[in-house]
Every structure is written in structure tokens, then in C-alpha cells.
């Protein structure tokens, strides 16, 4: 169902962004205060605060071990968060109207979000804390909102971090009329049974939802290597097929704006072709699938622990998922 009228003034425009989230003078993203407090609290608990102030090692893409999970939490969490923040706020107006999907989906009532792979929860935590800050600063109304979260992640350590942070922001979110119901489960994108379990949980937890969203983030590093994309494709087909519904459903795929993602033969080229090939039939002739393309933006963000700002690049694709049996 196309709920958004593209090309209109955005639901939350650049002028509406409070200074707590975007400094228009320095053109810099500020991560949501609730998120910073939750993340630094977790780092402190694990003795990682000083490490997080040090420069990050190159080519860090996360992993299953405790060390890999901790390294990712320490050095990659803020970058992942900044990308989601840039996407929701789009201060430079480069991302078409993708940000509108967030405000429509999370405007109120009971909604569902799947965050895969969740890592330490950077995507979902940024979505929630950004919404909460916009509500706190009276940019968007505090309609009662219940967010049912399904976070799928292979690393048990990252799952634990995500859970800790979600619990720590619960009270602040509740103050902004956002109630969360988190469900965190192991998920392996290369495994059909694991994916079927994920899909089953998605179906179960999205019952009676007013809208739903699937966020896929920071997956290109893994899927671009060792032929993983080819192995993972059937699982994605299953996830997307089961995400179509009578209700408003969006999938957003967020990646760093690197060459191997954005080039013609890059990762997003493969993903959009795959989507068009597999979902054209349910869109019917001439509908959205042909328009699927990716958008990019770049911004500096203020690192909460470092005295210099950091550059963040983002590339994103938004898929409006058609209705079940949607050929009209």
C-alpha cells in the first residue's frame, strides 16, 4: 500500500530538526542523548570506555566471538547509529522521502519492526531514541506507541548488548509514550531453518500491528564475501515474501556508502536487481518496483567520546512491500 505521497514536503523537514539531533551551524549530526547515555553506560560496564576513545582498527566487520562483538560495539556502534540518524533526519535532503517512512510507521498504535542483523542494536536503538527526542522536543506528537521489536543476530554477545541497551532506555522511551516489547533471537542468514524460525516469529509478533518495518543494516561486508549473497538470497526471499501484508509494510536496507556497495556491479546493484526480479509480479505492471533505486548521503557526526567529528557515508534502498496477492 503506498501511503506516502512522494515529492511533498517531508513530514519532518530540515527546519524541524531540534539542535539536540542536528547542529545546523556546524552541519553535524548529534546522536540522540538517550542513545549516548545508554551506549556509554554499557561501555563503562564492560570497561571499554577508554578503548572507544582510541582510533578504530581498519576493516572491522563484526563477528561471533566475544572479542569481535566487543570491538564492534566499541568502534562501529556510533557509525551505524549515525547512518540511521542521517536517514531519519536527512538534514541534507538527499534521501528523497525515505525518512517519511519512519514517521508514518512509528507515529503511534502498535507497530512491528524487525532489525536484522541487529548487531548490538544500533539501528533499532537509534530509531527509538531519535523518535523519543523528536517527541520530547515537541516536533512530533506523543501518540501512544507500542513497538514490538524482533532483533535477529548471530552473535550471542551482541544480542546481550542489544538487550542491555534496550532495557536501559525503556524508562526514557516510556516518558515519551513509547512502550517497547523486545524479542531478540539468534539468526543465521545463511541457514534456511534459522530463517524460517525468524519468519515465524515475525508473523507471530506482528499480529495486530498497524504498520511494520524491516530494517537490514550493515550487511554488505558479510554478504559480499565468500559467495554469501548467493547462499543468503533464498532466506531474504522468504523474509520479504512474509513481510508483505494488508498493512503498511516497508523494508529499508542501509549500508555504508562504500564503492563496493554503490558501484554498478556493487552490492546494492545486486540487491535491487534481485528485488525487481522476485517481486515485480506482486507489484503488478508499472508499479513501484521499477522505481527502486538507492540514495546516498554524507554527513559529519559528533562522536560522543572523541573531540573531533567523524564522517559518515550512507547508502540506502527503500522497498515498499506490496500487499499479499497484490497483483491488482
Amino acid at each position, binding site marked *: *500500500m503506498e*501511503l*506516502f*505521497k512522494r515529492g*511533498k*514536503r517531508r*513530514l*519532518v*523537514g530540515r527546519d*524541524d530538526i531540534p539542535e539536540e539531533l542536528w547542529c545546523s551551524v556546524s552541519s553535524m549530526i548529534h546522536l540522540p542523548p538517550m542513545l549516548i547515555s545508554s551506549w556509554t553506560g554499557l561501555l563503562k560496564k564492560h570497561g571499554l570506555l577508554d578503548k572507544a576513545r582510541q582510533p578504530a582498527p581498519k576493516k572491522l566487520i563484526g563477528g561471533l566471538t566475544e572479542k569481535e562483538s566487543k570491538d564492534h560495539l566499541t568502534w562501529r556502534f556510533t557509525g551505524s547509529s549515525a547512518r540511521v540518524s542521517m536517514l531519519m533526519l536527512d538534514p541534507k535532503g538527499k534521501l528523497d522521502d525515505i525518512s517519511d517512512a519512519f*514517521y*508514518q510507521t512509528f*507515529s*503511534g*498504535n*502498535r507497530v512491528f519492526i524487525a532489525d536484522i542483523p541487529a548487531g548490538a542494536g544500533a539501528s533499532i536503538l537509534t530509531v527509538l531514541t531519535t523518535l523519543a527526542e523528536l*517527541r*520530547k522536543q*515537541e*516536533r*512530533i*506528537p*506523543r*501518540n*501512544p506507541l507500542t513497538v514490538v521489536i524482533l532483533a535477529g543476530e548471530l552473535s550471542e554477545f551482541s544480542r546481550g548488548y542489544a538487550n542491555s541497551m534496550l532495557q536501559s532506555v525503556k524508562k526514557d522511551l*516510556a*516518558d*515519551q*509514550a513509547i*512502550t517497547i516489547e523486545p524479542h531478540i533471537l539468534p539468526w543465521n542468514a545463511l541457514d534456511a531453518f534459522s530463517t524460517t524460525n525468524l519468519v515465524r516469529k515475525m508473523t507471530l509478533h506482528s499480529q*495486530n500491528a*498497524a*504498520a511494520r518495518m524491516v530494517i537490514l543494516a550493515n550487511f554488505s561486508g558479510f554478504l559480499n564475501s565468500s559467495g554469501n549473497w548467493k547462499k543468503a538470497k533464498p532466506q531474504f526471499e522468504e523474509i520479504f515474501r512474509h513481510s508483505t501484508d494488508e*498493512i*503498511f509494510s516497508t523494508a529499508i536496507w542501509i549500508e555504508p556508502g562504500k564503492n563496493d556497495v554503490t558501484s554498478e556491479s556493487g552490492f546494492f546493484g545486486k540487491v535491487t536487481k534481485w528485488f525487481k526480479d522476485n517481486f515485480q509480479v506482486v507489484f503488478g505492471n508499472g508499479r513501484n518496483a521499477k522505481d527502486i533505486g538507492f540514495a546516498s548521503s554524507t554527513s559529519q557526526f559528533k562522536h560522543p567520546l572523541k573531540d573531533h567529528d567523524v564522517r559518515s557515508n550512507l547508502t540506502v534502498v527503500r522497498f515498499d512491500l506490496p500487499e499479499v496477492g497484490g497483483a491488482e
Partner: protein
Amino acid sequence: MRAQTLALRAINQYRRRDTLAYVGLRYFLNNRCARRDRWADEIATHLVRTRSNTPYFGSQHFKEVDDEGEVLHRRIDIPSPTEMYAEAALINRCAAEAPFQARSCVYSYRLPQNGSEDGIFEPYFNGFRERHRSIAAASHGDDVDSLLYTDIRKFYPSIKIDRALQVWKKRSELGGLERDWIELGERIIHDHGLISDRSGAQGLLTGPAFSHFVANLVMDDIDQKMESEFPGHYWRYVDDVVIAGTKGRIADGRRRLSELMGELELELHTGDKDFEVSASTWLEGENDFTNSDSRLWMELVSNIKKLLLYKPGLKAELHRAFSDNGIRLPLLDYESAVAESSFVERTRDWARRYSWARRRIQEISVASLVRQALLARSNYTEALDSHLEHVPVSGFGRKRAIPKLRYFAGRLIYLLPDDQLLAMAGKLEEHPELFLISRVSRAIATKDVTDVLNLGTNAVNAAAQVLRTGKAQISCKTERLDEVQSQGAAMLVINGLRLDGIEVHRAPINDFAEWRSGSELMRSDDPFVQELACLHGVHPDSRHTQMLDTAFDRDEQLAFDVITQLQESSYF
């Protein structure tokens, strides 16, 4: 940030209606992105369409006093702020399509003109006055000897949900509405059914704007038949119908109308609302709506607004000067609404919107407004006394006299000092039709709200809006307030007035009014209160009075709500 059309329409519609509805809307629209039409069109409508609860507040309004002196109430349902905003969007969408336009014989709840910010519908008085003119024109004709007034019994509650759904679906498809809009209308009607069912009724709710709109659609077939069978001689205003013609012809008209109503399971009243009057008698009141009484009031209100907008620093002085002279006109603070608009925008608007020049503004001062208010006081007192001396005991003459008495008394509530207001209450008390206005006047003059609490929330809201302009403590001689009275107590508290040491039948709305355990209310089981509490947010103290004291936008009307609260018809 300036509000766009739909926000202003919703605000202006409900400011005149109900304190609670207004305050709720203000909390919703206090968020800058929500003030845009797009938020109403896409977000508010989406939220209503996909909600899993039915957030309405069943407010008890004064209906009448029965033969035993018992006060009877009418339930008025207030939709949640999100729904009020979605209604504004839905009705605006419909207004763009021909099949939703009202017939020329229907004068109530007409759809707003493009860009109008006065309300979700055209101001009620425009239609009322136009109907009067049309009846006058017909009454001069040779084929009109008499006029029949009749009235539909329990209008909104008698419109069955299934019928409303059927009519809505058919008409919206004919109008080519997009599926989301059709579903929204269906959802609202369906939810009316759920609420209605809980209170043992089965029809549309009385109160929501969408009820008026759907009711007009449901009546359209009847209107069309009556209009074609009695061309130029049939008029409808909500549930009031007038038919003109010869004696025989109007009898036919009533019979035919009753038959058509029967097909929709609606009934005509048979009591004193159903009467005939000769055309010559009716024409004695032909000019009832063209006299200059209202001009004085409109000028006063308009000048007050101009002073508040362009000389906001004088607000406190004006308030003092009014109080010193026993005048209780509530003054809105437009300062922040004006400060938010840029100088360029203000200047451009000035030239575009107002034909009066800067010189005219300069002439308005605190002293000139006091003079104007005192002139209105003296003119209206004289007019009220003169009309009171000649109120006919019964018949059409009395029906004509009552609205005039209400008009003057309603304005004098704001203009008379306590002793004179109390005297006015005594004079009005003799007339049962003026019972409500008399009791409200007495409560304001004595600062004792015991009696108005029992009457219902419309009476309390009317009194509270005036009482809050003074500093005196209000009193109540009851030890414990029942359910209806407690609703009234909540309205007093929202208006910043307190009743100390009185036990109140507690309902979630009382906790909201007092902002007791605010953060817990955000999880209230009562979905209406939950939504309001969430929109309010976890501030330590309530912000209700702040919302009532400040203007939402420069284009918010300066409404003197008492007058509407005390209208004869309780069908909003």
C-alpha cells in the same frame, strides 16, 4: 511555525465547543510538524484507521428539566484529538468531490470553502441566516399561507450504524475517494457503533464532526425527494424541518416526510416542536437577523483581537481595566503566536488580510475598548429588559423572543458586574427556556458552582470560562460529587479553578484534570485519557491553563465560548 488550514479548522471548530476537546487538540498541535495539513492527511488518518481501541469521552450535557424538576442530560461524545484532526482531513477531502455537496435545501454543516479556516464546517450562523432569508422569500409568495415546523426525534442516535455505513460506502465510491479515505470513514462509523452499543444505544454518536457529515448524507435521499416534490418550500437544518405552502399542502408535506423518515426508521416529533404558523405571522420576524445588535458585539471582539495582536504588551492593562469595570471578557495571549511569525510575513499579511489601515489600529486603546464594552453593556441591558417585558406566553411569538433573550443575556454574562448579573439571573429564571443561562449567570455572579455542577459539563464549561478571568475563590455546597458533577469538577480544574475539601467520584478524567500521577495516566486503561495524557507528556504540573490562556495561532478566532455552550440545540 504557522499552522496550516486543517489545524486551524479543527481548533476553531472545537474552541467553541468544549474545553476538553480544545485542550486535547492543543496538546496534539503543540508539535510543530503536526500543524501541517500533511500530518492530518497522512498521519492522523493512518492512526485512526489502524487503532485498536475507541477513544471517546462521554460528556454529560444539560438537556432539559423535566416536569418533576429533575435535570436530564444528553451524552455528547468527544473524539480523541487524533480523530478530531483526522475528521478535519476526511471532511476536507470529501469537500473536493461533487457527490458530497449538500443540497440547496440543507443549511446545516455545510462544507467549508477552499482555504477557509473558520472551522471543519462553515460557521453555523451563516446557514441559519440563509435559511431564514429563503423562508422569507417563499413566504411572500401567493402559494404560501402557512409554515410547518417539525423536528426529527433523537436524530443522531436514531441513525443506525449499518445504514450510515451503507450510505457512506456508496457515496464515497461515487465520489471516487481513495481506499484509505473510505476505510477511515468506515472505521469511524464502526467505532461509533461500538461506543453506542456500550451505552445501550444503536446509532451515530452525538458530538463528533463526522456524525454531522454522515447524517447529512443519510438524509440526502429524503432531502432530494422533498425538494423535488415541494420545490423551494422545504428546508432542513440538522433535525429541524420547515415546510411552506397552503394548509393542505403542508399537511401533505408532513405526511410525506414522515413516510420517508419511516423508511429510514426515523421519526418526527409530535410535541411542541411540531407546530404551524401563518405566513403573515412568520413574516413579522422577517428581519430578526438583520438588525444592528450584533454589529456592536462583533466590532468589540474584533477590536480586542486587534489590540491583542498588535499591542500585546497592553493585555495586562486591558484585563485590569475590564476587571475594574466589572467586565469579564477572557483575553487570549497572542504574543507567542505573533512572535513566531517573521516581520516580513506579518507585514505582508497585514496588507493582504486586513483592509483597515494602520491608523485604525492606532485608534484602538484600552480606554476605547472599555468604552465600547460599557456601551454594549448599556445597549444590551436595555434591549434585554425591553424584550423581557413583552415575552408572549406561548406560540410563535415566544419562539421568536427566546433566541433574542439568549443573545443579549449571553453577551451580558461577560459585561455585567456581579450584582447586575445576579439580578439578570433572577429575571431570566421565570422562563424555563432560559433556565440554563440563568443558572450559569447566577454561578458566575455568586462564585458558587453547586447548581451548575449538576447541570452538566456544557454548563460548567460556560461558567468556568468566565470565572477564570477573576481571582476569587469558587465555592460549592455539596460534600460529595456524583458522576455527572465530577465531570464538571474536572472541567473546573482544567480551567484552573479548584474545589477544595470536596469528595469527588473519581474517574480517569479527574486524574487527568488534576494531573495526578501523570506518567501513570500515560498507561491508563481509558484510551481517551491515555491519549490525552501521552500528548500532554510527563511534566510535573499540568499545562491545561497555559493552553487555554494562549492563542494557538494568529488566525485562531477569539471565541467567546459561553454563547455557543448555551445554545438551545445540544446537537453540535
